[in-house]
């Protein structure tokens, strides 16, 4: 049995293509059913996120299965095959296992280490489990992918540092203020970056938002959006002391806050630290304020340097993650290899024959006055018996088209008769992790 992967992602296709082949989670049942109806496809899982659309399946016929999946992606969405063909990638065997492990561990993501993808795959798998399109192999395969992703997350620091400017600002704030829960954010000016950063501070627990703008109406509109309070720009220095975190992005051509302005503010704050984040270009805050005791100033360049350093760090951690994945692939490939019909029948026959011979030898040793031809007769009898016992299972296993069931039987036989597997893992039953709840 082989695992195959067919799909496209942000690395191979633009968003225009990706949105055309995306599957809606609300109507995933039909495509999953259609997938299993394809010739030679035994199990299937469809993963569809904004950055990738992928089908994981098992088949005995790699070339045929891959071809049919590629066509399926076009046909299902009523697209001419040529429009998506150049963007598709397909993998089988170990390459397919590696691909899925890498995707789940967020090594293939646009922002390496971002945490959403694992949850998205879990949800996709949840649908497949619910509609019965995943079976013994994909069940174990995806559970394995989840545990690999968890290992990568805990054993490397791939997701430990902020890789966006606004997250970097939040992390820095946590090194100044222990908790953000009683902290007030002040927005001076408006701008996408500024609003995004403010939103990050709020979702990370900041208490409230003050907004000021040269145009008071703009400040009011923004304040409403954040459920904060708008301040007239002229009163900025009357209220500055209330703010712990100050985000600025005005279009002012000169500094709007200088060290001189802060003398009184610092006193009114009883010297509690202030964190200025200056996103404006040209800058709004005089860099000299960073020299004041208890005032910490970061501008756009500083934050981008933090992000660049973190990204580099992630790349190094990604190498460690690749090593973990390589290790896990070897283990999983061993288990897949045990799910083959002929070697399983051979192993089963050998196991029974070994038992037969051992029992025969014991009987003959104990039977002192046995008639001369008894050995030959017993040998024939027991051999025939084993052949009869094995006849029906062999037929069932070899009957093609059993698909999913065949793998189940093979796995059961290996376990029940303790057939040599060489993998510890195959002895343990499937981890019965609860499938993720589908929204």
């Amino acid at each position, binding site marked *: 049995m082989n695992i195959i992967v067919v799909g496209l992602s942000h690395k191979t296709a633009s968003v225009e293509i990706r949105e055309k082949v995306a599957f809606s989670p609300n109507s995933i049942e039909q495509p999953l059913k259609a997938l299993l109806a394809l010739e030679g496809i035994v199990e299937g899982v469809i993963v569809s996120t904004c950055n990738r659309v992928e089908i994981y399946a098992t088949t005995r016929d790699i070339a045929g299965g891959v071809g049919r999946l590629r066509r399926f992606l076009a046909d299902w969405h009523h697209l001419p095959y040529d429009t998506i063909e150049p963007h598709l990638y397909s993998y089988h065997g170990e390459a397919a296992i590696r691909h899925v492990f890498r995707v789940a561990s967020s090594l293939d993501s646009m922002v390496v280490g971002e945490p959403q993808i694992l949850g998205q795959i879990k949800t996709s798998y949840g649908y497949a489990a619910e509609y019965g399109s995943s079976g013994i192999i994909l069940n174990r395969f995806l559970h394995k992918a989840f545990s690999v992703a968890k290992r990568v997350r805990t054993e490397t620091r791939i997701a430990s540092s902020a890789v966006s400017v606004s997250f970097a600002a939040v992390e820095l704030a946590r*090194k100044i203020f222990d908790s953000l829960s009683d902290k007030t954010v002040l927005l001076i000016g408006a701008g996408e970056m500024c609003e995004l950063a403010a939103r990050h501070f709020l979702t990370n627990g900041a208490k409230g938002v003050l907004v000021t703008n040269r145009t008071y109406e703009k400040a009011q509109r923004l304040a409403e959006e954040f459920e904060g309070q708008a301040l007239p720009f002229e009163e900025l220095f009357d209220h500055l002391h209330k703010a712990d975190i100050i985000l600025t992005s005005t279009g002012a051509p000169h500094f709007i806050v200088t060290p001189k302005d802060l003398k009184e503010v610092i006193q009114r704050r009883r*010297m509690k*630290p202030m964190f200025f984040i200056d996103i404006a270009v040209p800058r709004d805050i005089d860099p000299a304020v960073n020299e004041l005791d208890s005032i910490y100033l970061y501008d756009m360049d*500083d934050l981008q*340097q*933090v992000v660049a350093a973190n990204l580099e760090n992630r790349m190094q951690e990604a190498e460690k993650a690749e090593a973990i994945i390589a290790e896990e692939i070897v283990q999983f490939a061993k288990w897949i290899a045990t799910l083959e019909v002929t070697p399983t029948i051979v192993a089963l026959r050998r196991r029974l024959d070994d038992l037969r011979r051992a029992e025969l030898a014991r009987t003959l040793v104990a039977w002192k006055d046995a008639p001369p031809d008894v050995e030959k007769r017993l040998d024939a009898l027991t051999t025939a018996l084993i052949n009869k016992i094995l006849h029906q299972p062999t037929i069932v296993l070899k009957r093609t088209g059993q698909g999913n069931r065949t793998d189940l039987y093979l796995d059961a036989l290996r376990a029940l008769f303790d057939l040599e597997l060489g993998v510890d893992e195959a002895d343990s039953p499937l981890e019965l992790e609860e499938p993720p709840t589908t929204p």
Partner: protein
Amino acid sequence: MTDISFYLTLALYGVTTLLYLACLLRSTPCLSGLARKLLVAGFLAHCLAVIHRAIAAGHLPITNMHESLSFFALSIVAAYLYFEFRFKVTSLGSFVLPLVLVLMIGSSVFPGELRPLNPALKSAWIYSHTLLAFGAYAFFTIAGGVAGMYLLQSHFLKKKQLGTLFQKLPSLDTLDEIGYRCLTFGFPMLTVAIITGAIWAAQAWGSYWSWDPKETWSLITWFVFAALLHGRLTTGWRGRRAAWLTVAGFLIMLFTFIGVNLLIPGLHSYN
């Protein structure tokens, strides 16, 4: 028995110090958990050693340099354990434990033979006066450690050097909070220690205050921390300059405690 537990303590503190320093480089929950357990073990062994010695001597074991340094180390560890459990700041240990280890090694260098107590010191005041002084010293030591960490962390933030050490150190607010707490615990203890000392001096030596070097230097220490606490309570004084003064206060306190005994002869030096 006293010796065994003393050297066991020394060994445990040695290993613990290494573990805490390792935590700075690469901390895992497992490593810091182990460090904490070993520190508690070391603390218990240390208590045992001090109690044994107290029983053997028949008085608090703080009458010579060997005993005082060890008792000082014990007080610091006790205060540190409080803050570690209260604030979960493993990195503080990386700064405090090396000092504890140095104090213990210092203690082991000084002769440890038991001597009869100076008759002038035989008084119930020895408990309130010295225990309070040691408590104050322990809290000021922690305050000095956090102030150092504050300066380091603030330097990293200002200069945008956000390396491994920056990641391991707690936030400025946490350090500030611990430092302030140390002041509010330590300062009243030192105040009462000085007052009880004066009363005891009046009984033992016939004068409340005799400008003995120890007395003079404790008064200087008291003024430094009084200034810090006053600034904090009136204008909310904190930040880097306050941290520098805390470090200075700690160094003066260290001189009051160790330097005065070793360098300047006076009523308080018993060696």
